[in-house]
């Protein structure tokens, strides 16, 4: 019979190993829903440079698999989404430590390029870890004893194309749509289109951006359960693809794979809208951890 201390220590180690595995796996093996969306984009693209870009992307995904190499060299900033069950026997403070150590281990052992620097001195702070890095988002689930960890390594080219506008209630839904359109046209080829446009609406300024990031972490082409929001997703996807920005901004029919929207209720005088871009290499990987430390990996969550 294990003592409580042993249980905590072996569970923390299981989460650490899961994080290390997820980080590398996400970088190498992109989910099937994304592969399907990219293949579908290649089917409908009619521009010559756009078609050249999409064929190169499809070839690249294949080569990454054959060579067991990273899909993209930008190992990103490590972002994790955790869903913690009320009865999961490891405290979030220790889950955070495990994610930190796992990120570091993967970076050293693979090895991966380390991107994390002090934001003022620009000095490298370690092996893809540092002050408040990795970035971890938390959700707590009542009446459950499991833990889900989703790793989303976020590249800088797409993250740099993040935009926030505090629209007014009078700007309405039209103001939201216009801001999304302006943002994506302004971003042009820089965020590696065609990718996923994440839009967060409502809440507060910071929460809108949080929701936009949550939107890009969803499986490609999933729809928001709220039919009004889902309708906005469909409409924005269509409008964005009419701009003609095209693959890598070289012109074409496919500017985005999909637009995902997450929303929160807001103050009666607020109408925040945030845009967070995810490049075509929309990497993500998930682990389901049981209270006994066993782990199921899931590429499609």
């Amino acid at each position: 019979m294990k003592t409580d201390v042993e249980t905590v220590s072996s569970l923390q180690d299981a989460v650490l190993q899961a994080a290390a595995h997820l980080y590398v796996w996400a970088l190498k093996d992109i989910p099937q829903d994304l592969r399907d969306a990219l293949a579908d984009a290649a089917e409908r693209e009619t521009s010559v440079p756009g078609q050249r870009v999409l064929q190169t992307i499809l070839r690249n995904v294949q080569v990454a698999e054959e060579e067991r190499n990273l899909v993209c060299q930008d190992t990103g900033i490590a972002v994790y989404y955790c869903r913690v069950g009320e009865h999961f026997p490891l405290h979030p403070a220790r889950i955070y430590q495990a994610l930190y150590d796992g990120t570091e281990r993967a970076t050293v052992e693979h090895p991966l390029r380390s991107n994390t620097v002090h934001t003022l001195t620009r000095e490298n702070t370690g092996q893809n870890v540092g002050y408040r890095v990795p970035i971890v988002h938390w959700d707590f689930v009542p009446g459950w004893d499991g833990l889900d960890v989703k790793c989303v390594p976020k590249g800088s080219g797409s993250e740099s194309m993040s935009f926030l506008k505090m629209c007014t209630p009078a700007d309405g839904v039209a103001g939201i749509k216009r801001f999304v359109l302006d943002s994506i046209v302004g971003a042009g080829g820089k965020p590696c289109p065609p990718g996923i446009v994440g839009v967060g609406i409502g809440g507060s300024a910071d929460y809108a951006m949080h929701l936009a990031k949550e939107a890009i972490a969803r499986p490609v082409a999933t729809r928001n359960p709220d039919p009004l929001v889902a309708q906005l997703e469909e409409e924005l996807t269509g409008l964005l693809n009419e701009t003609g920005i095209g693959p890598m901004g070289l012109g074409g029919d496919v500017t985005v794979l999909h637009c995902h929207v997450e929303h929160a209720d807001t103050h009666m005088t607020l109408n925040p809208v945030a845009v967070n871009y995810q490049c075509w290499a929309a990497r993500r990987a998930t682990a389901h951890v049981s209270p006994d430390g066993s782990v199921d990996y899931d590429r499609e969550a």
Partner: protein
Amino acid sequence: MEHRLTFPTTEEAIRELRAGDSVLVDGHIVGIRDRTQIRIFDQGVEPPMDLRGAFLLHTAPNVRKVGEGRYEKLCIGTTTSARMVRFTEPLGRDYGVRAICGKGGLPDEAIVPMRRYGMVYFAIVGGAAALETTQIEEIEEVFWEELMPECLWKFRVKDFGPLTVAIDSHGSSLYHDVQESARKKLEALYERL
């Protein structure tokens, strides 16, 4: 039109290329990034390498050190070029660079220097690093290792591409054209919101 070019190359060969053309590259290319160019142009340090006729790639590669000054490729991809646009003119004027390759494009201020000095911008597919790595045969030389990974790298490449000529040496830029047309479309789209 499709071309094959070996670098370093000449102004004449560069003037043959037109925006939209597809190019495969062989020979030697030079990896360079923000800090490398800040050192050359803002700190006035002469690059320890002849850049005449050169092909510059905006990159910070993942590598493994295998000996003194020797590195093995792990994963080499391309970064966003727009941050480095202000170096375009001095690269052509002072060093005779012929091609800049990156992802996402250069803003319109690159058009005039590229026309004046006979340079092109090649668009590579951002994120397609696994494929790009297989087209780099070897890391031949590395200078300024203290800037790792933003050193000055010399790579030998084979069948590097396909690249798209996105800004040519005759004043044409696909990015400019795409933006102009998108701005017009936006005006019409606003009416439907």
